[in-house]
């Protein structure tokens, strides 16, 4: 038996989980844990500059690597500062475990100094959370937390650690097994249902695959590609699903939804068989639900039963892990050689129609006198290797990144899709860079969003994390201004960022490098410079101030009702 204090047991448990990095920030309630951490060599602690940054970094780390991201913060304000990060991870199903300090158990409920009921506060935005009341439960709870965070539909789990519990001693033994009786995700889909899917797909005339972030979580990208190639069915992806299907492939329709491509939205509107895989019919995807895929039989493969028929009535649901279900589906389809070849032949005319849609309204822009943001993203795409990790902030910058960067593999696009959290991208990029020190990591940012977690420049410099921040600086909270322009008679109420820092000097003051770019002819050189400069870099691209993101479906309209330019 291994006798030790709770604080040491916490670190031991992290070792048992194979944790290599912890993002966090110290404070009174976690002094005992930090005292132990000081001598820990095999787990790197990364001191961020704001607890929100710690959670986003752990989230970016998890999205890029597929491993559970871990944070550790103090009680009270440290804990409440994590809430936005936790809600962001919750909405996008990202596996992270957040440890928060708590006041000693005898003071809980007393309005003690730096006390916050973080378990109560985060109940609706965690997959599960725990208050450790007895040190004897610590190991079991941590084991459960990592298991719950990373299995089924992944998500954030929070563990609240009262100071006295961290000081109490226990006989540490990490459990080998977990059994959580109220939790058993379904991985294998119902065989009869999968057979029915195969039947429906083989009979379809205008099928479309609509793939989401669930494909990334279940590592099913390869299976998706096989299914598409086997059947010749075109694929559209959600924002969260970008990268699961190579966007330069002939079968790729690009993103669908509010800022999706014309071809994708038209294909979904006219399809007779919509195959939704690991996607959840978000309102930014469906637009007006009554008119979404109106002619289609809808198939839905998802690990989360609550996603099925939540927004859109599904004809053929299968609850299960995308990878496992796709594998069985492919195995059922493969032997049906004749039907498959008939399907492929039949789809030729569907591909013709799609081709016309593609040609009618491709994604396009014209580079004029001032820098176009689309051009900057296109240059970043051209000059970075395929395995580059692209994080984004939120707003127009995010949509231009999604539209114009050609994602060719999963886990390289980090964006806050569900919550739409400004300030997510930069710390997420830092987390991804920690996971992959030698890969290129870029944050495509807006001038508004970047200021929400700009303090993390210090973290990037301190740990030599060479993240490249590309600011698409339009002087506006651009996406909000775009809506004001379109739907509020151009009344730009408080969306002009009249005062912003000199980003170059700001970067330099933190010890990073920066340049400002105003001429279109300098864009390529500036991107090259950023990629070739050591250490963290910030490039302030002064772009066309009132450029809008198109195409666009007004909120609540049917998705074939697109504003095209």
């Amino acid at each position, binding site marked *: 038996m291994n006798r030790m204090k709770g604080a040491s047991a916490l670190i031991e448990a992290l070792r048992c989980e194979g944790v290599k990095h912890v993002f966090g920030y110290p404070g009174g309630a976690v002094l005992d844990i930090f005292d132990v951490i000081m001598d820990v060599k095999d787990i790197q602690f990364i001191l961020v500059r704001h607890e929100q940054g710690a959670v986003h970094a752990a989230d970016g780390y998890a999205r890029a690597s597929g491993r559970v991201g871990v944070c550790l913060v103090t009680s009270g304000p440290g804990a409440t500062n994590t809430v936005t990060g936790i809600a962001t991870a919750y909405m996008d199903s990202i596996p992270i475990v957040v440890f928060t300090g708590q006041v000693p158990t005898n003071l809980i409920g007393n309005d003690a100094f730096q006390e916050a009921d973080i*378990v109560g506060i985060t*109940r609706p935005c965690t997959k*599960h959370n725990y208050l450790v009341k007895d040190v004897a439960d610590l190991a079991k709870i941590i084991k459960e937390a990592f298991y719950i965070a990373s299995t089924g539909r992944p998500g954030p789990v929070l563990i609240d650690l009262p100071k006295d519990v961290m000081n109490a001693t226990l006989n540490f033994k990490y459990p080998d097994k977990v059994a959580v*009786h*109220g939790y058993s995700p379904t991985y294998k889909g119902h065989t009869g249902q999968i057979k029915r899917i195969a039947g429906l797909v083989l009979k379809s005339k205008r099928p479309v695959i609509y793939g989401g972030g669930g494909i990334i979580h279940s590592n099913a990208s390869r299976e998706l590609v096989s299914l598409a190639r086997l059947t010749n069915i075109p694929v559209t992806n959600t924002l969260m699903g970008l990268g699961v299907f190579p966007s330069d492939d002939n079968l790729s329709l690009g993103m669908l939804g509010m800022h999706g491509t014309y071809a994708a939205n038209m294909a979904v509107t006219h399809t007779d068989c919509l195959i939704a895989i690991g996607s959840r019919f978000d309102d930014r995807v469906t637009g007006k639900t009554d008119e979404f895929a109106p002619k289609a039989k809808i198939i839905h493969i998802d690990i989360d039963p*609550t996603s099925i028929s939540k927004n859109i009535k599904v004809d053929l649901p299968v609850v299960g892990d995308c990878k496992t279900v796709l594998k069985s589906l492919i195995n059922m389809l493969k032997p049906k050689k004749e039907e498959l070849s008939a399907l492929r032949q039949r789809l030729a005319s569907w591909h013709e129609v799609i081709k016309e849609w593609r040609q009618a309204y491709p994604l396009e822009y014209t580079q004029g006198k001032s820098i176009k943001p689309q051009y900057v993203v296109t240059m970043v795409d051209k000059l970075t290797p395929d395995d580059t990790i692209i994080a984004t902030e939120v707003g127009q910058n995010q949509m231009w990144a999604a539209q114009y960067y050609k994602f060719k593999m999963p886990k390289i696009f980090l964006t806050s899709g569900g919550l739409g959290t400004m300030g997510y991208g930069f710390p997420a990029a830092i987390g991804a860079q920690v996971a992959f020190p030698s890969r290129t990591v870029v944050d495509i940012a807006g001038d508004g969003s970047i200021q929400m977690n700009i303090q993390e420049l210090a973290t990037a410099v301190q740990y030599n994390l060479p993240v490249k921040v590309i600011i698409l600086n339009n002087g506006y909270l651009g996406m909000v201004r775009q809506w004001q322009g379109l739907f509020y008679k151009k009344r730009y109420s408080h969306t002009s960022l009249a005062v912003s820092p000199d980003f170059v000097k700001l970067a330099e003051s933190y010890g990073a490098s920066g340049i400002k770019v105003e001429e279109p002819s300098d864009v390529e050189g500036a991107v090259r410079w950023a990629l070739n400069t050591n250490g963290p870099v910030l490039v302030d691209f002064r772009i066309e101030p009132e450029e809008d993101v198109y195409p666009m479906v007004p909120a609540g309209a049917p998705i074939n009702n697109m504003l095209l330019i």
Partner: protein
Amino acid sequence: MRHVISLLVDNEAGVLSRVAGLFSGRGYNIESLSVAPTLDPTRSKMVITTSGDDQVLEQIKKQLNKLINVIKVVDYTGKEFVEREMLLIKVKAEDKSRAEVLRIADIFRAKVVDVSHSSYTLELTGNKEKLQGFIDILNPIGIVDFIRTGVIVMDREMQRRRPLR
């Protein structure tokens, strides 16, 4: 539509709040609630009655199932079940009305659980309608105080019909 939902849950702090959050988060009211430990003291059984849109309730039930601390969810809607609540009611009982209160109590098979010079406290179990009927009849006499428990339910064993010879 009215739904009676029974849950088997972990008997620990915070579980009720997780369950209630799924209703309140969607603007749904819990009309009645009963909770008590089961034979296994680490588990509790909850019965919730609520009403609302079937689709939203379907979603709430799925979400309930997803809670780590919820082990089983049963919606009794459309099923055969026995339903009971209990009522404690304190009624004015002075001079003339004393006998009448007792008579009504007798008809409803309510029990007298407390007596004073000016009131009777009665206990009654039954379904919602029976309890409501009792309250309505006593109301004109003068109700001093009353309280009802939440609904509790148990499914009925299927009544097997013997095949006709």
